């Protein structure tokens, strides 16, 4: 099963690198121009559940890595075919200087809140996304807080050390 997916991907797309790490885990490295077509291709081959969209900040390489994790729903209602076991980790790198990427909400509707989250926490702008509004945070940070150069501990010190302690002699 995983061999045939590897073959199909590598024969259809040129620059795709497929690694089978384990029986059920396949990592697919994709150029950023190809992400949408690869995702569409895989969705048509029963990988129809986008489980997660994630982002990793590789600060030393000055790149963000966008990660799409695809699994498949069952084709029938009761029978397990074995393909549900597989999950694909589709990865692509984008520049950290001007983090911009295309939205995949056209292919997977449920990518919407994940992309909103990445926009908010990493500052990646998704073109074509209809609702890039804040999700969790209530303040506007200079550096999006999940980036590696945002030091949470330093931030807490900077903010809270300015507030004086109360005098309390009640011992």
């Amino acid at each position: 099963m995983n061999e045939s997916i590897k073959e199909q991907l590598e024969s259809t797309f040129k620059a795709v690198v497929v690694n089978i790490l384990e029986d059920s885990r396949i990592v697919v490295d994709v150029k950023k121009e190809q992400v949408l077509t690869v995702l569409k291709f895989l969705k048509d081959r029963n990988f129809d559940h986008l489980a997660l969209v994630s982002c990793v900040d590789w600060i030393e390489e000055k790149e963000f890595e966008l990660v799409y994790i695809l699994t498949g729903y069952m084709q029938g209602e009761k029978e397990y075919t074995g393909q549900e076991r597989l999950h694909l980790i589709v990865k692509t790198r984008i520049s950290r200087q001007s983090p911009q990427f295309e939205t995949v909400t056209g292919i997977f509707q449920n990518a919407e809140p994940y992309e909103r989250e990445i926009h908010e926490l990493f500052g990646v702008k998704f073109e074509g996304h209809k609702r890039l509004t804040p999700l969790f945070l209530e303040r506007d940070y200079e550096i999006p807080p999940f980036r590696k150069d945002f030091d949470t501990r330093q931030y807490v010190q900077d903010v809270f050390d300015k507030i004086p302690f109360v005098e309390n002699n009640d011992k």
Partner: protein
Amino acid sequence: MEILSVDTNSKKTGSGRELELYFGPQHLGMVGNFSITLKVEGDRILKSTANPGYLHRGFEKLMEYRTWIQNFPMVCRINVVEPDSMEMIYAMAVEKLAQIEVPERAHFIRSIYLELARVGSHLFGLWAYANMLGFDTVAQWAMYHRDLILDLFEELTGGRVYHIYIWPGGVRRDFNPGFKDKIVNTLHSIGGCVPDYDSTFFNNRLFYERAKGIGKITQEQAKQWGATGQALRATGMAYDIRKIEPYAAYDKVEWNVPVRQDGDAYSRVWVIRDEMIESVYMIFKLLDAMPEGPVYNRIPNPFKWKIPKGEVYVRCESSRGELGLYLVSNGGDKPYRVHFRTPSYPHGLIILEKLLENAGIADVGNIMISLYVVAPEIDR
């Protein structure tokens, strides 16, 4: 509920004006720290916007500052109601990255422990749901029975709510002598009350009238919106990670995936009931099949523990649906990136918003709780 704005110029049907309402976080129909902004006309909802973030503690970022072992007290706090599957998934990911084997007995103990947690969590969900519908008696029973399970956890792990019992390489300690019998006794006393639950709640006409047809989704919609767990199983698909990609000891015993067909609140709550009963039977089978042996494989010194470079996505079936964890290591003593795929995330941010359109205000709590949305899991 607080009225945010009144628009008198809009169309004049029904009550004749549109209101914008805040539903939650301090509202009787709302469980947990979550709010929804509703645009209503009369008592019909035109548009709803979910507002998460009241419990955003940034755990995923904080975990990048702590060693692999130090993160266990953090992961379990991501889901307050059922912390156990969180421990499990983090342990699974670390084990996969560091290639640690788990002894056979520990697999069984983990499964028993996770199923107990599932029953406890479902009883909590039943409490919330019954309370919301006004079935106070059933709610109190469910809370009482959940407490019995927490007593078991207290004896096993020392903690009632947060246990930190699952550990990379196994579980922290073995069952005490006689603990098996205690599990059996507790489950018998809970299971003995199922007929009472059925006659007062599940077979009650009031529950049927109140939940039938509410918050209905088709299987196609469920797939599009990323539903898992009860929301999907209530539409007829037996999608359960415990069957699809068995972990712990779930492939060692026979059990069934409860399924319903209609996709509404009524079906979802029935799936929850059937799952509790299935879990109880499963625990009995696991207790019988449990082998003897060690429960723990030693891990390296946690203070100097470095995990090889790599990335992993693992998933397990929490009481709400597919729980996933994407974990990246860059070869250091701390995780490089942690990202949880929690089941409530698509349920609360996508499906809830879609289902509330054209629903009545009286059904907001019904839809939300039947979708089993837990706010801390969304915010993380």
